[in-house]
């Protein structure tokens, strides 16, 4: 069993250097110091810990990596520039190794704040202070503690009461050097406001290993609506751990999509606390692991209030000796009556060496509920392949069609055509469909 080693660079000196470098306010400095103490007091997970049982821990190792301190150069990679040109986003931002290197467009709706966290701390300190660490905090895991202590930059998005932002907003988090890095996203959607936000992680080949930590905090006030996409398509030297957690007040609605396509290994924890009656959470996930990639998707649908709904669908395909773990739990608290909670995981195994683990779980402590979960794992259906071949398709083409169709069920539920097109292109490039390059 692999035991993870600590990184000597993660310590008081690094935290104090960050605080001094950015001239951070005292409250934040104290938060960082406390987070570091929590980090130091928390052991690294091992395979004996239930939620890390199937994780190839050594692939997430951080020892020996230097803390990333800004990009090598401030240029924007073509792949990102073209995505921005091509997108229908109202505004976008590129954060490279913790530094904002590009801003495009601006948000027209009044009072909306869409900027990086460093700028937000300067211009909207009270707002940041009220919500930062309120959803994802250091006590949740070793990785969350590391992020809380050492995050350098990230996105801050605030949509005021009753404001609807019509077009999507997005941040590209990218890197051109390896090491150990931590970023953060904080989204606050006020009463009856509405917005779509895309968090994309992408890079050209870096040439050295990068261990990126991300924490995504989402606060949805009464009646707030958010469509949130987390799209991970890092180059193959990168490993990422991301905890995405949302807190939903009365009648709030979250539609989330978590996509894992890139990197060497990635762990996404997608969690919602349905704290208000009538709140709803649609949780979609898509992953396609090839060439030995290792993905972990851990989900939580926490029904703390009555009359809430959550509906989860995670679909994944695996090939080339890849491994994927889906583990999700629906928790219904005592008193959370009239809960509707659903959870589905489907895996497609494209070769014998790949391994899929699926653990859909229920913990129900109220009786007037409708809860179900389902999981299936299997190969590309032979009869479907046969049908397509009988219509003249070559075997590999038939497989491309069927894998794309299998994953498309997830994308069809997301009304973001540009994101869907891009995901489809990356999937086809991974499948080796002739003429499709992943770029753009």
């Amino acid at each position: 069993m692999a035991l993870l080693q600590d990184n000597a660079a993660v310590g008081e000196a690094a935290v104090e250097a960050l605080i001094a470098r950015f001239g951070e306010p005292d409250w934040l400095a104290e938060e960082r110091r406390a987070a570091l103490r929590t980090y130091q007091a928390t052991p690294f997970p091992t395979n004996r810990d239930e939620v890390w049982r199937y994780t190839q821990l050594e692939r997430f190792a951080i020892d020996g990596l230097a803390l990333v301190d800004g990009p090598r150069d401030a240029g924007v990679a073509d792949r990102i520039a073209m995505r921005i040109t091509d997108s229908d986003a109202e505004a976008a931002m590129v954060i490279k190794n913790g530094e904002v290197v590009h801003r495009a467009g601006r948000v027209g709706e009044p009072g909306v704040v869409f900027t990086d966290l460093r700028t937000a701390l300067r211009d909207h300190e009270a707002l940041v202070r009220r919500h930062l660490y309120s959803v994802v905090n250091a006590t949740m895991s070793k990785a969350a503690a590391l992020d809380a202590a050492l995050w350098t930059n990230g996105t801050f998005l605030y949509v005021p009461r009753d404001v609807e932002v019509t077009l999507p907003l997005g941040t590209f988090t990218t890197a051109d050097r390896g090491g150990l890095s931590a970023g953060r996203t904080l989204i606050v959607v006020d009463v009856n406001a509405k917005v779509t936000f895309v968090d994309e992680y992408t890079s050209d080949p870096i040439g050295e290993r990068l261990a990126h930590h991300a924490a995504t905090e989402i606060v949805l006030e009464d009646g707030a609506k958010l469509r949130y996409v987390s799209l991970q398509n890092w180059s193959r030297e990168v490993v990422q751990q991301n905890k995405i957690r949302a807190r939903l007040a009365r009648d709030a609605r979250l539609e989330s999509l978590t996509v894992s396509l890139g990197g060497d290994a990635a762990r996404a924890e997608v969690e919602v606390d349905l704290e208000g009656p009538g709140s709803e959470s649609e949780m979609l996930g898509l992953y396609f692991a090839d060439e030995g990639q290792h993905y972990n998707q851990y989900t939580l649908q926490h029904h703390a209030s009555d009359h809430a709904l959550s509906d989860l669908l995670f679909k994944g395909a695996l090939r080339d000796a890849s491994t994927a773990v889906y583990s999700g739990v629906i928790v219904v608290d005592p008193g959370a009556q009239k809960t509707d909670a659903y959870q589905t995981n489907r895996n497609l195994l494209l070769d014998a060496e790949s391994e899929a683990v699926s653990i859909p779980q229920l913990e129900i402590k109220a009786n007037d509920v409708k809860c179900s979960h389902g999981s299936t794992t299997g190969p590309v259906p032979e009869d479907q392949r046969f049908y397509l071949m009988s219509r003249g398709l070559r075997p590999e083409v038939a497989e491309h069609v069927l894998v794309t169709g299998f994953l498309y069920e997830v994308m069809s539920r997301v009304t973001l055509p540009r994101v869907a097109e891009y995901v489809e292109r990356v999937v086809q490039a991974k499948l080796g469909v002739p003429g499709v390059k992943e770029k753009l």
Partner: protein
Amino acid sequence: MADLFPQDAHPDAAKLEGLRHTEQYSFYMPENYAFRSEKGLTKRVVEQISYQKNEPEWMLKFRLRALEIAEKKGRPKWGPDLSHLDFDEIYFYIRPQDRKGTNSWDDVPEEVRETYRRLGIPEAEQKMLAGVGAQYESEMVYHNLKEEWEKKGVIFLDSDTGLQEHPELFKEHFATVVPPEDNYFAAVNSAVWSGGSFVYVPAGVEIDVPLQAYFLINAQSMGQFERTLIIGEPGSRFHYIEGCTAPTYNSDSFHSGVIEIIVKERANVRYSTIQNWSHNVYNLVTQRAIVQRHGSMGWLDGNLGSKVTMKYPSTYLMGEGAHGEVLSIAFATDGQHQDAGAKVIHAAPNTTSSVVSKSISKGTGRSSYRGLVQIHEGATNARSNVECDALLLDEHAKTDTYPYIEINEKTAHVGHEATVSKLNDEQIFYLMSRGLPEDAAMALIVRGFLDPVAKELPLEYAVELNRLIELEMEGSVG
């Protein structure tokens, strides 16, 4: 011997007040034991057990090795709360009156027969049933095996006698399916096992009438560690049934059995058990079958009683075309935690399995399904399907589902589905509008929910199950 060890006082009626089922299910007989080990789990106790049983040297060594393993392993850190289970307060071995197993119903002690009567098992039924091994305390005291089976070479004995009379056969298979290293409670059982059944069915022999063993706990704070070993030779076919009901005593009791089943080529073995231990028993059982080529193993696992049950019948499909099936029902009422489930390991091509789990939680009861489906590389075209349905009867009832699915084979087809629901108000309303009182309506719906399992049971068990459900549902309104 009988006087060497102090007898516990006869529990007074006041102690039993407040316990559920004090009407029909609170029976206890005066204790009258020939030998009882000291309390606690120690090397000395293990040596005493082996000495009392006059066992061969290898078994004593095995027991002592298992004890060492148990000491190293420690209790599992997952699952239900076992913090109230104190080994130092438990007798690990009691031998009823130094008596050898008997062959005739008339020889069965009156108090055992009285217990059966209280359970509602008529004597006529006993006689009709082919062979009955009743485990009263730690040892089988009653055996009756039909003559024609003996002619066919069928062996159905208590495990202690099995070890004495068929040492080679016993040693060859014992602990090959569940080694003491497997888990903590299997190690404890291996150290102190006593009683259980030894079943051997020769090649090609088919038995139509189920083999049955009833056994009971009757000594306060006494652990029961039965060890059952079932061997189905190639082409054999039989059904083994075990039911147990315990009197309600008021200090925690501990039951930790190990069931080992070997299903050889083309053999077809069914193992059915409905446990209805009193609500103070910790029931922590390891049940496992190994299935060879084209063999078939079926488990029916019913959990109605006990305070805490941890039981996950597992099936290792080792040979091509092997098949495994588990039907599991659990009924958790106030204060009970039924942590049951199934494990199926597909280790060969064209293996198939199916698991159906039905659970009901009532009052503050909690029922959990914990399962594992594993498809190993090379187990081509393996198919497995798991269905779990949970019914919640009250606001405070709880249910969990923890299915683990590990797939390492491209051609595997694996599915899992679970649903959780409450009693349907419309159905209750309909039945009441037809004149049924509310509790009868609820009981009817619950029986309907369990019907897919009940119809797999032999008639007398289905009747008993229905009677138990009705009892559980009594007074559930208001």
